[in-house]
């Protein structure tokens, strides 16, 4: 298998946006690497390694979110306080809003939005990574973008909120 190190910066960027937290993101990347190495025989030579890593990461993250939701009630006390976002830039407030808005999206919509926009994946590749039909990618992308508009107040005056049909 080719060197995984070259893929780390992009994996970290995606994980940071997906989890909204530096430490959770790096833990997720580490879990992804460990699983990938443990299952390297399942990687099909010739297929894109980075896509395969993203698939592993997505499945791990979805399972974590599900497990977390299941235990949310009893674990509430143990949750670490939300680490403060790095507020270094002048648009820090905007970044924080963006982070909060992203986290308000359902995981499946967030993943599609981030793969298409931040990671610049084609719609077809996004479908392959998430193992869903391209049509589902498009509908999730529509919902994610509209929801994000509402959350960021960007489109409030432009159009009434669309009723999203599942």
């Amino acid at each position, binding site marked *: 298998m080719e*060197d*995984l*190190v070259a*893929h*780390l*910066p*992009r994996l*970290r*960027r995606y994980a*940071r*946006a997906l989890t909204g937290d530096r430490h959770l993101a*790096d833990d997720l*990347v*580490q879990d992804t*690497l*460990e699983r990938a*190495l*443990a299952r*390297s025989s399942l990687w099909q030579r010739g297929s894109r390694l980075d896509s395969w890593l993203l698939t592993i990461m997505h499945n791990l993250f979805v399972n974590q979110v599900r497990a977390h939701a299941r235990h949310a009630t009893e674990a509430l006390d143990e949750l670490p306080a939300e680490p403060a976002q790095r507020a270094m830039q002048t*648009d820090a407030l*905007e*970044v924080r809003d*963006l*982070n909060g808005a992203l986290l308000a999206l359902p995981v499946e919509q967030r993943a599609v939005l*981030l793969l*298409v*926009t*931040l990671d610049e994946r*084609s*719609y077809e590749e996004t479908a392959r990574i998430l193992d869903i039909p391209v049509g589902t990618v*498009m*509908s999730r*992308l*529509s919902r994610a*973008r509209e929801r*994000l*508009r509402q959350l*960021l107040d*960007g*489109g409030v005056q*432009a*159009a009434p909120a669309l009723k999203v049909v599942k």
Partner: protein
Amino acid sequence: MNRPLDADLHAWADGRLDAARAAEIDAWLAGHPEEEARLLDWKRQKELLHAAFDPVLEEPVPARLVDAARRPPRVWRLAAAFGWLAIGVVVGYLLRGVKPGDATAPALARNAAIAHVVYTPEVRHPVEVGADQEAHLVQWLSKRLGTPLKTPHFAAQGFDLVGGRLLPGERGPVAQFMYQDRGGRRLTLYVKTDSDNRDTAFRYAQEGKIGVFYWLDGRLGYALSGEMPRAELLAIAESAYRQLNP
């Protein structure tokens, strides 16, 4: 022109349309300012996401992730992949010559010898935490075993600490410290918690080519393993005992 498909609108916002199709959409948007505002918001979202998260690309990647990306499967994982057969064959080979009667050697000595032959041949990853982080190593293993541990030193006998690792034991976590001399010979000190709470004198077991001195000391059971003459190993075991019971 009819309303374009959503897929085309997304592709327009993502800059993925060919020039001709993009121009058609532009023309349609000119007559639909609300749609245009919506699509411009989509483009703006993408710019915001890049502005917020692209700096991560420039951050130094934490060492633990580089390690995780480069780490070959751990010995134990490999064992799981091959089934325990592989370990069985290796251990069986290294412990060859052990007579059936020797199988009654206590679990402490036997498990220590097995851990010794599994980890001492490791070239790149003999330990999980190296001697350069000895304080962290001791703190970590003490925490996992639930009792304060100490690392004896055998510089006088020519062996330096390489580091240590955590192992699964029959009744919980076990610590293994590894030492090496200039000739590349390795010793391991295997430390487990013991509920029996009693002290014993040194006992010796020979597991194939591996000699093991083991003893119980209150809550802890120790086993020092090495492939060397019994007298030499005993001297080191005595040194360990003195350092652990000052």
